[in-house]
């Protein structure tokens, strides 16, 4: 049987080799983003398709200023400009604001105008957190029609100490921004967890929180706002 199949193995190898050098294939795909957490919100998502060889962040390395602005305050404008400069196909803020726990949002992409846009990044800040974000880091966009599921963890941008008190979303300023639904579920009057900016992007060690709504160290609620990875499920459907 081996002999019978040998020519086919060679043909397959040839076909694979040809596929490797053939031009990238345009893909029409839908992206569904599901917030899996019990009590955390996500700020506006950046969903893009850009060429291979680019990353919005690299674990173990310092965050860019634009990643910092996203991770500390939910501001994706700098990252949008970064990927736009790569001729990316992109969608900004498909959820039209905060994505609530258990909620989902969908956006569609077509790389026909730029078939070299073969990599998919998705980022958004997680609230409440000082500088936590969900990051799907430039995964290869599948070209075969079908449904593909990605479980996405939370990262810490490493740019701000995790003091866990209601405060500012401006890069470099302490505390976390608290738009209405986040403020409503947060405590207040926390003295601040003693923490320093870590200096590099890494998997988030989770928020600490406490059970003292009107004081304690943290304004984050330990029974509501903690998470266990994954924090987001991304479902890519290639049409």
């Amino acid at each position, binding site marked *: 049987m081996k002999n019978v199949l040998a020519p086919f193995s060679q043909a397959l190898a040839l076909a694979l080799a040809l596929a490797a050098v053939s031009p990238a294939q345009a893909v029409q795909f839908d992206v569904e983003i*599901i917030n899996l957490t019990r*009590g955390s919100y996500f700020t506006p998502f950046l969903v893009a398709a850009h060429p291979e060889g680019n990353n919005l962040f690299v674990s173990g390395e310092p965050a860019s200023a634009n990643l910092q602005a996203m991770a500390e305050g939910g501001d994706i404008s700098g990252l949008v400009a970064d990927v736009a400069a790569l001729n990316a196909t992109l969608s900004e803020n498909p959820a039209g604001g905060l994505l609530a726990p258990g909620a989902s949002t969908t956006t569609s992409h077509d790389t026909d105008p730029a078939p070299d846009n073969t990599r998919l990044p998705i980022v958004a800040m997680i609230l409440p957190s000082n500088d936590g974000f969900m990051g799907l880091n430039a995964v290869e966009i599948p070209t075969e029609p079908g449904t593909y599921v990605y479980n996405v963890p939370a990262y810490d941008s490493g740019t701000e100490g995790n003091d866990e008190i209601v405060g500012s979303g401006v890069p470099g300023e302490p505390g976390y921004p608290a738009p209405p639904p986040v403020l409503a579920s947060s405590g207040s009057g926390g003295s601040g967890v003693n923490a320093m900016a870590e200096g590099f992007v890494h998997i988030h060690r*989770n928020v600490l929180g406490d059970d003292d709504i009107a004081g304690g160290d943290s304004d984050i609620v330990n029974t509501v706002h903690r998470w266990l990875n994954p924090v987001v499920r991304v479902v890519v459907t290639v049409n």
Partner: protein
Amino acid sequence: MRRFLFIFLVGLVAACDGDGGNGPTVIPAPEPEPTQAATFTVTTTNLTVAQPLSPLAAIIHDSSVRAFSIGEAASDALEVLAEAGDNSGLLEAIEGLSEASGDAPLGPGASETLTLALPDDNTSGALLTLVTMLVNTNDAITGINSLDVSALAVGDSMTLSTNAYDTGTEANTEATGTIPGPADGGEGFNPARDDVADQVTLHPGVVTADDGLTGSALNQSHRWDNPVARITVTRTQ
């Protein structure tokens, strides 16, 4: 591979036939093989250190039913399983092609294999769901949700690492008297829905008294990280 060889042999037969030139040869149809009921074994391993899993509920069903969905309220039957570890309601509520129940709680580190046989060899549209409670919690479950097993060939298997879900039917107070497992021996099912949102999500984990939750009946040993179980599905027939 097998199919290719078959075509190859058919080709040879056809060639011999052509050489004879004596008209068509009548080949009697082979006796139909007796159909064997499609059978699956499902092996669940509890990966936690101190969270026994309530008796497993495993069901093979079609796409007309679903045990739960992220962002949607849990059914009453799922609530009972998630708060009390009682799987009887869920097994009754989901119309299945085949179902099985664990004999007893599945302790930390332990494994159990359930067998599910379909009525015949037709696996078209077959989805597998398995649900069990982490009993030292208010309402945490784990399992697999409508996994497509229709294309699994005899002898093939799939292994999944499963996350913990929060059914959203009971607030995660961890308070003494609210947890049915051996850590507390407290209340199981209570129809009140008092969680921060009446919807299924992933579970945030337990905080425990050792990590600063006043009044928690749990200690550090009851914490876990995902995955909480490993489940291997094998088609045996």
